[in-house]
């Protein structure tokens, strides 16, 4: 995984997998929810709360650009492999 925004604190995929994942997959301007689990209010702080929900917005399919919203922060990453997985999950 390469990062184009703020780097993941400990190297990308493991950082993502530690959190429950809410995935928003998008192509172009439209955004659709593909899976929602464990809904709850996210923590005000952007600390390392493993239980806090996390939202992914697939901003640019072609370039594999993903916005990862966690706590009060957003990080932008590029991960074409993850993009492919999300698109499959969305039935696309």
């Amino acid at each position, binding site marked *: 995984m390469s990062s184009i925004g703020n780097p993941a604190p400990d190297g990308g995929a493991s950082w993502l997998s530690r959190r429950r994942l809410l995935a928003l997959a998008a192509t172009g301007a439209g955004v659709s929810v593909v899976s*929602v689990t464990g809904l709850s*209010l996210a923590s005000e702080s952007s600390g390392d709360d493993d239980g806090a*929900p996390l*939202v992914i917005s697939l901003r640019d399919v072609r370039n594999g650009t993903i916005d990862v919203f966690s*706590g*009060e922060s957003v990080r932008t990453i590029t991960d074409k492999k993850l993009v492919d997985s999300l698109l499959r999950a969305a039935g696309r």
Partner: protein
Amino acid sequence: MSSHREAPEISKDPVADSSDLYAFISHDEPDSVTIIANYVPLQIPASGPNFFEFGDDVLYEIHIDTNGDARPDITYQFRFRTELRNNRTFLYNTGQIESLDSENWNRRQFYSVTRLDSRGKRTELAGRLQCPPCNVGTISIPDYAGLAEDAVHKLKSGEKVFAGQRADAFFVDLGSIFDLGTLRPFQNKHLVGQKLFNFAGKAVNATDRTNVHSIALQIPLHMVRRGGRNRVGVKDAGAVIGVWTSASRRQVEVRGKKGDGDVVVGPQVQVSRLGNPLFNEVIVPMAEKDKWNSLPPSEDKRFAEFVANPELAALLPVLYPGLFDNLAALNKTRQPRADLLAILLTGIPDGVIDGFQNSAGRVQADMLRLNTAVPPAAHENAFGVVGGDIAGFPNGRRIADDVVSISLRAIAGATVPLVDPRFKPDAAATAVEQGLSIKNVSAKLLGKFPFLPTPFDGLNNPS
């Protein structure tokens, strides 16, 4: 209005909609500045069972620039949390509310106050302060004023704070102004009105008998002045502070299903902003208003063109034929309105008005600028600086200042001589007014913090 529903998007989000901002030195606490930011405008007092409240999902902020760079040196953040006592009733209160800890008061709101310095360092000043209830009615709350007084909190750090419902003390004849720029006292001179009326009309206060939710702060002056100084001179740049308020929401919200909670996550995104009254309302074009609300004051140079040649200045000579000929001639020159650029975007520099300045820098930014060395006026003039009272708007803003009329006069050309002594304002420019005053607000201002009147109660309003 001042900033009530002033932009397309925020008009659909009243909980985050800032409607008025005041900053002034009061007689009772001349060594402190009082700042009041109003939100949730146009509340009908009779609004049960779900009475108005702050948004638990909104970050409310009051920002203070102490060095003229249009960036916050001090920010106060307010976060609210609503709690239910009884989840088996539909009622806001199940009996009389006679104290803030009344068992009969079902839906209460608490808030935290956090102060940020210019480097973003956070200090939580209070974690769980209580708001007063809404003014349900005199049967539910027999002594509302006393109850609200108990909700004024003195912080250990020195500030006084209040957050809760108040009567809206802003006065404006909204119905006429947005009916093709009519001012009822001059309706018989209006382009269309002169065909309909042969008499001057009486203005109507459209916001009377409505409530708002206010966040009020009273801060010792040394805490907001550059260098922490207790005493400064009027000409000292360190005497001037710039104030604005903003409301923000988290960037992402995912609605829960089957009773699950929503997910609210991501950075705060600003959705509302307010410095000078009427700036976004009548200066910024509709197509740019939502963008303006999302930006900080340090970006306001991109809106300077609308201040330099305001649309309203071009409309006045058309709407009131023959009354604004000098203004029309000035408009034709297309010269940027240096008077308005100073008043709204940089502050009035030293040397323009005897014994006064409220400029702290050259950065063009819409902030409410207050020279904190100017003492409260012995006799307030509702026309503020335009009326010879330098303790009033646009030197900060007091609650009773007639900001609508002041802004009308300024845009009509009354303040051009400050920068061009050769210009002779039209007689109408120095006489035009909306025809209202604080006396047209059916509730009395308090003589002490938080100054805004007791909210109108639901039993008797509307009546």
